[in-house]
């Protein structure tokens, strides 16, 4: 089943998102709300990774498959380091948002598959994780909206 490929994508992209939230938080620690919120949001993704484990064991987790490797090509690299200054913060938050969108659509796809499979466990995980990914994206959106005018007009 190509499902395994998507489970692998969820697994890896959630891990990447968690790591990236931590990098951005620590790198912009002079903004305490960014530091602490990124930490809390990284824990959301940690939890999703944990909850994926039994599902991965059940369905397997394929990184590559001759027929279905499109999702792997979409896999985004995480943020290894942060940019400087107000515009840098904005760009880093935007990168997190891009990563988060990949995670969110992955959960959407998995939720659809779970319904087809009548897999209650996967349904529950995909629903909850997808909901929490939305909360991650909402915060990123809120923070970017507040920061954008000052950064783009007065930032250097």
């Amino acid at each position, binding site marked *: 089943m190509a499902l395994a490929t998507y489970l692998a994508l969820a697994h890896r992209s959630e891990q990447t998102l968690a790591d990236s939230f931590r990098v951005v938080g620590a790198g912009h620690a*002079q*903004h*305490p*709300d960014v530091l*602490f*919120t990124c930490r*809390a*949001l990284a824990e959301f993704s940690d939890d999703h990774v944990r909850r994926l484990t039994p599902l991965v064991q059940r369905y397997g987790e394929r990184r590559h498959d001759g027929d279905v490797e499109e999702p792997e090509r979409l896999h985004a690299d995480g943020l290894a380091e942060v940019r400087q200054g*107000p515009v840098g913060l904005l760009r880093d938050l935007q990168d997190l948002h891009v990563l988060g969108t990949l995670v969110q659509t992955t959960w959407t796809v998995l939720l659809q598959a779970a319904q087809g499979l009548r897999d209650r466990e996967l349904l529950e995980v995909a629903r909850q994780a997808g909901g929490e990914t939305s*909360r991650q994206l*909402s*915060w990123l*959106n*809120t923070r970017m*909206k*507040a920061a*954008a*005018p*000052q950064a783009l*007009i*007065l*930032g250097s």
Partner: protein
Amino acid sequence: MVDRIADIWGSRTPHERGTVWPARVDEYLEDGVAPGEVERWVQSACLLCSNGCGCDIAVKDGRMVGVRGRAGDVVNHGRLGPKGLYGSTPWARSSERLTRPLIRRDGRLVESDWETAMGRIVEVSRRLLADKGPLSHGFYTSGQLFLEEYYTLAVIGKAGLGTPHMDGNTRLCTATAAAALKESFGADGQPGSYTDIEHCDAIFLYGHNMPETQTVLWARILDRTRAGDPPVIVCVDPRRTAVAQEAERTGGVHLAPRVGTNLALMNGLTRELFVNGWVDQRWVAAHTVGVDELRATVEPYPPEEVARICGVDPADVRRAARIFGASDRVLSTVLQGFYQSHQATASAVAVHNLHLLRGLVGKVGSGVLQMNGQPTAQNNRECGADGDLPGFRNWDNEAHVRELAGLWNVDPLVIPHWAPPTHAMQIMSYAEEGSIGLLWISATNPAVSMPESARIRRILGGEQCFVVVQDLFRTETAELADVVLPAAGWGEKTGTFTNVNRTVHLSEQAVDPPGEARSDLDIFLAYASAMDFRDADGEPLIAWRTAEEAFDAWREATRGRPVDYTGLSYARLRGPTGIPWPVNDEAPEGTDRLYGDATFPTATDHCETYGHDLLTGAEVTEQEHRALRPAGRAFLKGAAWTPPHEPLSDDFPLLYTTGRTAYQFHTRTKTGRARSLRDAAPDAWVELSAADAAELGIGEGDLVRVESPRGAIEVRARIGHIMPGAVFAPFHYGSGDVGDGPGRQANELTMTVWDPVSKQPYFKTAACRVTKVGDGDGPAPAPTTTASAPVAAGLPATVGGAPTTSRRVPTPAYPNDPATGGR
């Protein structure tokens, strides 16, 4: 004659449940002034805490010489507290008053004149506008200006300049109250009333040391708890305050959760309501949204888990929940122990949840009082000189912004509304990076009161930002400014302000300000005039010239909004009592309590906010809000507890928390200049538990060094009734007058971190260590009459206040008082 230092709350006037709180008139005249010598009594209200007691100012020879409570005022029924009695007037004649503008020349502040000082401000302002645009301007105000001044400044900032960077120190004191009210009920506005005290069966005080922060309100409670049929008191506080002692006396509970664990306790209490069937299912179904999510959120918090997280007895959690669940009428009050602590908004919202689950809102005796720290904080929230739009309008609602644009006759695009107005800590960050190039600070002292003092001093003292300070005195903040403007204070100008209880008071000018000092309103108007702000038709943006004209303009801005002033005028406010809003055609005498019909201002087109994710602060969108169809129903919202931001470590093993004492207000600008108050609490101290002190080898009065990762203070130790593991420091004492070396300023140690929703800084969750520096030569300079009382017996008691009078008078009829059939 009463010494109100020794006797903080004055004599008792106990009375039965459901009867009117008796009147008692408290009065203080300065040394040598006999009652017959007072030439005039001028109507006002007290400005030395958020209670808003009606008072008259005594005037003799053109000077303010004392105060007297107004017997007919619904707020205080004639009483005044020690701060109001002793502290209201002496500062005005201090030789340290600012009487001329100062400008910085060659690194020093030198005396100047208004033309030069304002000219310099306008020059910088114009240059920044031309080079960088309006986002280069920031304003940081107070909780102690008057309504007319906040509204005028809001119009200057939002319609004249068009900058979103405007906030008040209300961010440090009441932002969470406002945020929590908005999350639950859709808009700011105190649901309950002080009159609920006379009718309730139980009173819960959450992180609220009312006996010291609002002494007159506590006297009102004591007059019920000392009667034959007292309400039960429940206290949530890490210190053994007078509230905690009253909880023991009345058969209630004192819960002392570890600092940083309030939300876990609240989740536990909420869960008890669900599992014991204390939820009014029908009311909840009809009047709230979100009960299923809330039940799921609090499910992981049974009493034993709460006990593990909070360090409290699980039986006490059950007892407190039972008192809440089984009492017919419950009053809750909340203050800084929740607002300035970890997960502030979620914890304050949890108090609403408890009331909503039982349907105990909008009913006599059942209310919530989300308190304020300052006397005019409410007006900053109403008028939009803080992180709000005027009239409780929603920045995210285009129709609301168009209303304001119509009112001011400007293009809606001028009014910044792409995000909420910038909060104070973010304004400081922009000033730090220099993108705010002009920061104008009025009537507040952030160099002492903001967290992480060393950073704030660096920001204000740096070259990257031009700083204007407008104040009564040359404060620690003024010393860092580029221009200092001398302001007139209370009694030296006319204006209105609104207390916690929504009660609006008029404060008339009693005397002339000293030297060239001007009212804050006149200063703002002078700036607006010099900048020549115009509306869409080329007319002056601000047409008013007097406080009364400003009030009338504000009244129009409240039409159709929850904060409805349309029935108020200066003439109406010259009566015997302040009047609580809404005041309009339907409620010409004002409104004692909100939401009597269980209809809340949550409709999507009407509400002040669409709400937030309480854990992250992410904004709920208009579409999401509309999909919930709140339509007048209140929101039940919860969040999981998370550990505080700074964990304890071997290096910093103790929890550090800050707070107030009964005898001082803020950074002591006024109370430090009144002899009775100064002598009662002359210097800073820290409180340690007996167990911690013994382990550290520290005795009463020893000099100790208290350090956090950010800074240190050296002050004397009081061995007191604080919970083991925690250290308390009063935040009133600046380091300005102690010279070099380790200071005594509590905020040297606090963290720069804030609540995700209210953006209120957390002053109460840092980690610290304490070491002994030297032996003491007597007890710590801490009062013995308050929560700072020593463990040791035999220390000299805090006494010695100047004589005051206190006399019973016939109790007048109070408008709206439910004990006499009012609404």
